[in-house]
């Protein structure tokens, strides 16, 4: 049963990845906007007349050989993607797309994972406390506060922090992942610089998501508090603190894990905005830049990698959930 479930999840992962790769191919090659055809006509108009030269360029950048039937192009594309070959950037022709991704992905992972973990724990803790204080005066105003916090779009939050904390107050750096005057490597000045540069992007994520975690955990806690097994535990004389952790907390946190699965995808979406605002050298900022430049090989590569990263995180979160909830464990 359990292995069947894991296999099913992996099958969905593979199918999703395949779908996404296909979508990127369709967008670049088959949509009415056909950026690839545009690229070929551009190159041709710049005087590269020889078809063999053109074909070499096309394969260099796009992994697509012109004048082949479309299904051959599709299979070529699939194979090269599976080999980790996403072609070359149109803007930085000497760089492979895989190379660009490799230098940028770690920064994004650092920001996204750190902020998600911190936000999850703060929100879950606060939500349980609030759930216990439901209906009180403080409860009402705190719920309103978190509702408003939750209603600020992530780019709004980022711009406000950038403007007030960094530009007005000058407390923290406004751009980059580390200062130009430190040498990258395992040395203290570099680490401090990296942390200082990441505080605002991480805070943006946390402020943007902690309200959701808090309100979610509050609602779960309230609903679990109404469950018969909590009353039954009280009737058995089990101490309040034990009930709060093992009966209420443990059961209320389960739906939070389901939300965690969904939030991973959202976090990567948010990374696009946060990195753009703080000029943070992650994969999201690269994606926006490439979209602006029309650098399609990079757009396609990054999209596939981000989605693969999300799918793997979802799988991990999902399997963790299987482990935590005996009802689905079987």
């Amino acid at each position, binding site marked *: 049963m359990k292995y069947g479930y894991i296999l099913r999840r992996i099958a*969905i*992962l593979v*199918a*999703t990845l395949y*779908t*996404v790769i296909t*979508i*990127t191919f369709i*967008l*670049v090659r088959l*949509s009415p*906007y056909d*950026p690839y055809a545009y690229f070929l006509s551009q190159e041709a108009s710049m005087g590269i007349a020889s078809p063999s030269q053109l074909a070499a360029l096309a394969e260099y950048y796009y992994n697509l050989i012109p004048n082949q039937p479309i299904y051959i192009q599709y299979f070529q594309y699939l194979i090269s993607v599976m080999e980790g070959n996403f072609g070359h950037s149109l803007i930085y022709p000497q760089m492979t797309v895989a190379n660009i991704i490799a230098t940028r992905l770690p920064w994004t992972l650092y920001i996204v994972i750190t902020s998600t973990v911190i936000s999850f724990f703060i929100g879950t803790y606060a939500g349980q406390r609030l759930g216990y204080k*439901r*209906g009180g005066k403080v409860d009402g105003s705190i719920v309103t506060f978190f*509702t*408003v916090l*939750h*209603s*600020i*779009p*992530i*780019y*709004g939050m980022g*711009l*406000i922090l950038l*403007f*007030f904390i960094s*530009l007005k107050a000058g407390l923290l750096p406004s751009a980059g992942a580390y200062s130009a005057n430190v040498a990258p490597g395992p040395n203290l000045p570099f680490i401090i610089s990296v942390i200082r540069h990441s505080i605002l992007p991480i805070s943006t994520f946390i402020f943007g998501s902690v309200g959701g975690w808090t309100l979610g955990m509050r*609602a779960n806690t*309230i609903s679990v508090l*109404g469950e*018969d097994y909590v*009353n039954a535990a009280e009737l058995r004389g089990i101490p309040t603190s034990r009930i709060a952790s093992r009966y209420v907390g443990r059961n209320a946190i389960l739906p939070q894990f389901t939300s965690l699965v*969904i939030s*991973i*995808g*959202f976090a*990567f*979406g*948010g990374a*696009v*905005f946060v990195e*753009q*605002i703080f000029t943070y050298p992650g994969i999201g900022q690269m*994606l*926006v830049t490439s*979209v*602006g430049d*029309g650098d399609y090989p990079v*757009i*396609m590569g990054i*999209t596939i990698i*981000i*989605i693969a990263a*999300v*799918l793997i995180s*979802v799988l991990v979160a999902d399997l963790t959930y299987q482990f935590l909830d005996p009802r689905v464990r079987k």
Partner: protein
Amino acid sequence: MNSQDKGVEKKSGQKSQNPSSFTVFWRNKYARIGLIITVGFFVMGFIGPLVYPAPKIDLTEIFAPPSLAHPLGTDYLGRDTLGDIIYGTGYILEVTFIAALIGTGIGVAIGIASGYFRGAVGSLLMAITDIVLTIPGMILILVVASVVRSGNPLIVAGVLSVTAWAGFARAIRSQILSLRSSIFVEEARLLNLSSFHIIFKELMPNVMSYTAINFIFSVQGALFASVGLYFLGVLPFSAYNWGVMLSEATSFGGFLAPSLAVYLISPIAVITLFTVGLIYLSFGIDEVFNPRTRRR
């Protein structure tokens, strides 16, 4: 709650008279605030431009602080910020509500179809839903928007709905699955009523309040995403647009202007207020129509 008497609970739930559903709705604090804010935005979007002067370029008043003539100050071309916001509201409402309509429509259709027609069709629809569900929407929207590059509200709304329907379809499906085996659907089946009748007369009414809530959340999602796309500069520049305002606040030396705070915060505040209104509206609908899930 087992310490409460069941009979007592039942009685206290009864209403002595039967007030119209709008009265019940209006009595709820959240519903009332949410409705006022949402209607307020419609008034601002469709009546505002008729009464408020269109913002004009005035290079003598670049980044002016708030004043009587310009309640929220001006931008880098001396245009009135409040005017920018009012004239940008209509477009936002169009895009977000069309996107929510498309997303919710697809979600309901696929959710009901996959829940009602089991077998190959249902499984296929659910497999597609599962795949779409795991794709991070914002990334895909960004990529699609980068290829499509159009500001047409219908096209933008379509792009925003690319993945928005999936979560809802799944939720509707599970509701339909549990309703399907319920007594009144069984009865309808025994009476040999058509699938059309069962779907539209027996099943749909039961998922209506849930659909309404999802519609509201879809509006909110589309609001964040559409403004975000303009902010990133992925969609073509257009006048009177909240996202373009945010984007301009960060460029054209805007960050150095002393009055920037107001210019920057105005569109953010408007988006936040609209979202709060939508969330309160959903709270209200939930409390009024699903008293069982009512937050205690």
